[in-house]
């Protein structure tokens, strides 16, 4: 706390510094306008502005709008006021690493491109029971075959293909979401009159039906919650799955998305970015921020015990994109999915490996998950994803 930024003599004053701080926050993903800057300056009149802790609390109340922002605010405040001055530092929490769109998209895509060649090793199952061989073979055969007819998802890193993935994501979203109830209930905006209620209500006004009550078929829409594995073995597929997620989020404002690797991160906010490429860039950065192996079981467990309590109910469909290669014991996956299942949701597991010839879900993690799934499907080409639409309608 004792480290306080020394501003240069030519510094234009407190107002400009506050504007600079707001720009700094904006650059880091907080949505703030001119009005907030004004409010922040006014607020400082009401607290002891020379006292860092008080200023921090006051600005926190003004500039943040939700729990996530409140949590990242302290780091941003320190970065700007405490030692680094105007210079942006890289000590932001991982949740919040949105930088300028162009950079991130390029860097992440380049990174993906480089990775694509040498990932065969990474997909070898770590808990494999003599299965590594067939795994390697299957992959080769699959790519050879597919190149003739359909393309494997890993080729899909062109923007227009991402747009296509988005279109499919939208269609899937629609297939899941259009669920209107058969019955009609009273509603302020409905398509038919609700006679019984209208007449009952008219008693209060001496038999004059002044207020017309209507009824409609209420939406029983399904909410999509997507969890995407971005561990080493999934890297080749990650970019496209992420594009798919981006499409899903942009077409459906109730959808919810998470990434997991060795831990779980909620990316719903990042994906709501209006610029599709920038959203993917922000998200790819989050995905890149992780290292090492995958802890599917623990991540799902975290999800089942935190976010799921808030966001998952009987009308949710939980989609898990993962190859099922897990470094933690399979009992974890089993327990996590059982807990999740109790919330009454549907669980779909999309496994890129399932599209390969002769694939059997023998990896311990995958085998543990199978009993809890409503659908276990392949998804390593866009055609596979598109084909899901029919299946989802019947869920």
């Amino acid at each position, binding site marked *: 706390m004792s480290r306080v930024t020394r501003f240069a003599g030519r510094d234009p004053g407190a107002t400009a510094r506050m504007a600079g701080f707001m720009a700094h926050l904006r650059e880091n993903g907080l949505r703030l306008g001119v009005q*907030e800057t004004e409010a922040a300056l006014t607020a400082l009149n*009401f*607290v002891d502005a020379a006292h860092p802790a008080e200023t921090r*609390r*006051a600005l926190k109340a*003004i500039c943040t709008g939700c729990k996530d922002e409140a949590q990242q605010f302290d780091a941003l405040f320190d970065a700007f006021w405490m030692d680094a001055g105007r210079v942006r530092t890289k000590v932001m929490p991982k949740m919040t690493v949105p930088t300028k769109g162009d950079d991130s998209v390029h860097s992440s895509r380049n990174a993906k491109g480089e990775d694509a060649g040498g990932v065969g090793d990474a997909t070898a199952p770590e808990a494999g029971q003599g299965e590594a061989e067939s795994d390697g073979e299957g992959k080769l055969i699959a790519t050879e075959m597919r190149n003739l007819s359909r393309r494997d998802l890993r080729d899909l890193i062109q923007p227009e293909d991402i747009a296509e993935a988005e279109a499919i994501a939208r269609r899937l979203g629609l297939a899941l979401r259009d669920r209107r109830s058969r019955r009609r209930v009273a509603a*302020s905006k409905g398509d038919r009159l609700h006679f019984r209620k209208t007449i009952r209500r008219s008693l209060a006004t001496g038999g004059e039906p*002044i*207020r017309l009550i209507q009824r409609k078929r209420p939406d029983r829409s399904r909410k999509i919650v997507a969890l995407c594995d971005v561990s080493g073995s999934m890297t080749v597929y990650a970019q496209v799955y992420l594009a798919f997620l981006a499409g899903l989020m942009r077409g459906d404002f109730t959808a919810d998305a998470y990434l997991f690797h060795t831990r779980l991160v909620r990316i719903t906010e990042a994906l709501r970015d209006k610029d599709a490429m920038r959203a993917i860039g922000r998200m790819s950065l989050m995905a890149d921020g992780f290292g090492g192996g995958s802890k599917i079981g623990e991540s799902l467990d975290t999800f089942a015990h935190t976010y799921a309590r808030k966001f998952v109910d009987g009308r949710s469909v939980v989609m898990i994109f993962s190859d099922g290669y897990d470094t933690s014991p399979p009992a974890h996956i089993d327990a996590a999915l059982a807990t999740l299942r109790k919330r009454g949701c549907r669980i779909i597991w999309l496994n890129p490996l399932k599209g390969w010839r002769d694939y059997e879900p023998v990896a311990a993690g995958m085998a543990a998950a199978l009993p809890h799934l409503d659908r276990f499907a392949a998804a390593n080409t866009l055609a596979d994803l598109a084909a899901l639409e029919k299946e989802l309608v019947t869920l």
Partner: protein
Amino acid sequence: MTSWTDLKSALAAQNYVASDDLAVSLHLALSLQRPLLLEGAAGVGKTEVARVLAAAQNSKLIRLQCYEGLDAAQAIYEWNYQRQLLAIRASSEAGETGKQVEDRIFSREYLLERPLLAAITQEQAPVLLIDEIDRADEEFEAFLLEILADYQITVPELGTITATTVPTVILTSNGTRDLSDALRRRCLFAYVDYPDRETELAILQARCAGIETHLAEHIIGFVQTLRKEDLEKVPGIAETLDFAAALMGLGISDLTADPAALHATLTTLLKTQSDRAHITTEVAQRIAGKAA
């Protein structure tokens, strides 16, 4: 109030222990006359802060409990249709012209005030508590925007009613759904978390007069450890207070002394069947032993 520490002590005088973050946010909300959005888990004292603030300021508390399907008629205003009809019948006998009748029945006299309208037409500025805003529909948030930004309400037949006094608005949310950006932008924000050990101890001692220090510390230790367990419904402060009251009522002064009695009082902390099944007598004893 001159500074946030004054506000904090004013709240403390009403037996409410506010964290520094919360006190500063409240102070700013009062000074800047902006609404304050409080988010946090159930049972951490979000609603209570509004009640206490009203008591500390000696002002009226107007509460609007939100629920799914809440509409303008229940939240803002409604015309008194019965009275209007009676007036029309009566006036037709008296031979008034249509214009006169219309002017009369669409006047303030025939307007039923609901909480939001009531809040901006008070003599003395009240505290307006909009509770669990996340339960209301998104449409309702849109109704709120005009009121929260300009403190005015537009009634199409009557014109715009501007506030006589600006109420202190406190919104609470449990975070069951994301609120719209437009609403968040208009509010100051504070996240109310479960209190730390010292704060919770202070709350317990403020609320349960005459509790022994030793027992209070033990209870807080127990509850704080219990919150780290894998529970479906994590106990809030309200539950802690119930728990303490139950123990004092039963005359228990040592948590480890009587396992059966402790297990029985856990009913005040654990509110679901699976949580009760998860925290068995042995587990409760282990936690109590750790807390002692």
